[in-house]
């Protein structure tokens, strides 16, 4: 067991992948000497060389597009998109090529490409740095979308993503990079939770709270606060957005009869709607209250000093929990 922040855990996971598999390479802006703006790739270029940790031109379409070509040639590129709002120049390559080439070639081509995208807000940053675009990737078939909420998951999930023969969008919760946690680096791969399995982060009885990435800690804080008032909240860390582990959530809701979904992305058209729709269908007879969603508003991400109002917080989560329990 080692204790490390999430950012470092991803760094350690990338290091392990680079050591294990010579076909793995990292590509991105400022990931070399600088170690990335979040220092997630710190020290990797020094240790693995400029050939395997590549500082690219300032062009996301180029990063993803050439990564696709490298993957076709047998490499496993891991692309860093510097911030969530900068992934759109690459969107055409992601949707048109990365997601579809396998189907277009009837399975003859594999695209083991990972897109690392820091996402979410709460770091007081300027616009385009704090968005949560997961719904846009989840709706695109051919992609897998995952996000870790703990250091342990960060360390292992990034390696599982790199090992996947399918393209994976790996969303990194920006404001949690510095959150410390225990990482069991000694686990045998077989003993690691599969990439597309959700996790009960806290057991509870009265209501289920489903969260992913940065809102998992928020959900746990809400559960802690609610416990004081005698409300027992079960927190599910979804971990995977595409596919969704609906079974784990449904099993929880069958016990609690109530579900609140929390994410930072705008609620309208967000991934919470898909989960809510599936649970409302699967658990129609066990739901004692409507599934409620707490998240960002249907607005462009606001200026830094307004984000505290925009982002879901413990009070807004508890308000939804109260409404769910009151129903």
């Amino acid at each position, binding site marked *: 067991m080692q204790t490390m922040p999430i950012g470092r855990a991803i760094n350690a996971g990338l290091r392990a992948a680079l050591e294990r598999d010579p076909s793995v390479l990292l590509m991105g802006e400022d990931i070399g000497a600088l170690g990335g703006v979040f220092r997630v790739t710190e020290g990797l270029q020094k240790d693995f060389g400029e050939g395997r940790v590549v500082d690219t*031109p300032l062009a996301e*379409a*180029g990063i993803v597009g050439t990564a696709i070509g490298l993957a*076709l040639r047998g*490499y496993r590129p891991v692309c860093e998109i510097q911030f969530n709002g900068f992934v759109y120049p690459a969107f055409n390559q992601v949707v048109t090529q990365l997601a579809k080439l*396998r189907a277009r070639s009837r399975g003859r081509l594999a695209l083991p490409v990972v897109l690392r995208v820091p996402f979410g807000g709460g770091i007081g940053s300027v616009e385009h740095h704090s968005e949560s675009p997961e719904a846009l990737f989840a709706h695109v078939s051919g992609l897998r979308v995952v996000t870790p909420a703990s250091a342990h998951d960060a360390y292992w999930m990034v390696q599982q993503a790199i090992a996947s023969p399918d393209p994976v969008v790996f969303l990194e919760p920006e404001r949690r990079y510095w959150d410390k946690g225990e990482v069991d680096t000694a686990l045998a791969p077989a003993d690691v939770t599969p990439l597309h399995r959700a996790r009960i982060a806290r057991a509870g009885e009265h209501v289920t709270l489903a969260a992913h990435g940065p809102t998992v800690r928020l959900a746990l804080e809400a559960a802690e606060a609610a416990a004081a008032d005698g409300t027992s909240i079960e927190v599910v860390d979804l971990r995977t957005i595409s596919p*969704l582990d609906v079974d784990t959530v449904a099993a929880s809701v069958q016990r609690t009869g109530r579900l609140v979904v929390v994410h930072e992305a705008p609620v309208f058209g967000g991934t919470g709607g898909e989960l809510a729709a599936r649970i409302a269908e699967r658990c129609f007879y066990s739901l004692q209250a409507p599934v409620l969603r707490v998240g960002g508003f249907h607005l462009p991400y606001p200026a830094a000093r307004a984000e505290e109002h925009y982002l879901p917080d413990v009070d807004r989560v508890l308000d939804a929990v109260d409404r769910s329990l009151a129903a």
Partner: protein
Amino acid sequence: MSESPVPAPRGPGEPGGMVQLLTPEGRRVEHPGYEADLEPEELLALHRDMVLVRRIDTEATALQRQGELGLWAGLLGQEAAQVGSGRAMRPQDHAFPTYREHGVAWCRGVDPLGVLELYRGTSHGGWDPVAHGFHPYTLVIAAQMLPAVGYAMGAQRDGAVGTGDPDRDTAVIAYLGDGATSQGEASEALQWAAVYNAPLVVLCQNNQWAISAPVSVQARVPLHRRAEGVGVPGVLVDGNDVLACLAVTRAALDRARSGGGPTFVEALTYRMGAHTTSDDPSRYRSAAEVDLWRAKDPVERFRRYLLDEGILDAEHEAALEAEGDELAERLRAGVRELPEPGPLDMFDHAYAEPHAQVAEERDAFAAYLATFEDTATAGGKS
């Protein structure tokens, strides 16, 4: 005001001018720096390629009219550019085509029926991209460019560039049209190729039209100048001259394989037919213009040359005609034999590993389909 001047166009003959080795009349001419001294058999092979490729095109067009294909994007007029560049490739090279490179597919040993699969709509393409070094057709304009650069960067990483071993050194050809040069990704690809000195040849078939848009809608200066802006040499070649296309592409590929870096080749040609079988060119261009280019027909031009040289004769042509008939017959029969996709096939290829929602949808759909079988016997939907 003083500024770095935009270089003036250069004429044929002079360095940087359009490379031409065969005049429209089929007369052999020289261009400094480019040879195409081929053996008679090689010349006949090129002629055969062009004739058969045109035959495939004719046949496919007919099959579309008969309703056997949903669509066809013809290559009529572009045989020289495609066969010349396709035959310049070595087995280990890779091509990233658009949707019109049927002639290149032919040169890469792709069964034309594999191409017809896409246009019939039974699959998105029926060939193995790796086995043929010929990647899937790309319908989203210019989207193949950056992956092509990445693939070339991969070859470079593998140490398959500049070793001097002709069977190892590898280059990539990315095909694109004149209209495609307007996509930002096309420029981005050129720049990445330049920055990484990738073993890439960009083969731009300037067939004068992007559906109804003449090339003047896309650019104010010759397309190959674009490349110079990022430090990639641009070459202009007569795209209806198979010898020139072969020579220029060979030189560019050799340069790429030896580690010399990327080259942009603009092949001046003409789309003699419609954009696709759904298009009606009479809405936007004159018959006179088409006639003008028909006089530069790449196949006829090369044929005349071979006849004058006594390399090609009536006997050869008769044999080739017969071979074409056979091929056409095989296509007509084969296209009808192409397996129809079953209702569940599409679920097999989206992901390499299981995806819960896809699996769930597949199972539900299979169960749903089963109800019809049951009820078919039971008589009607319950």
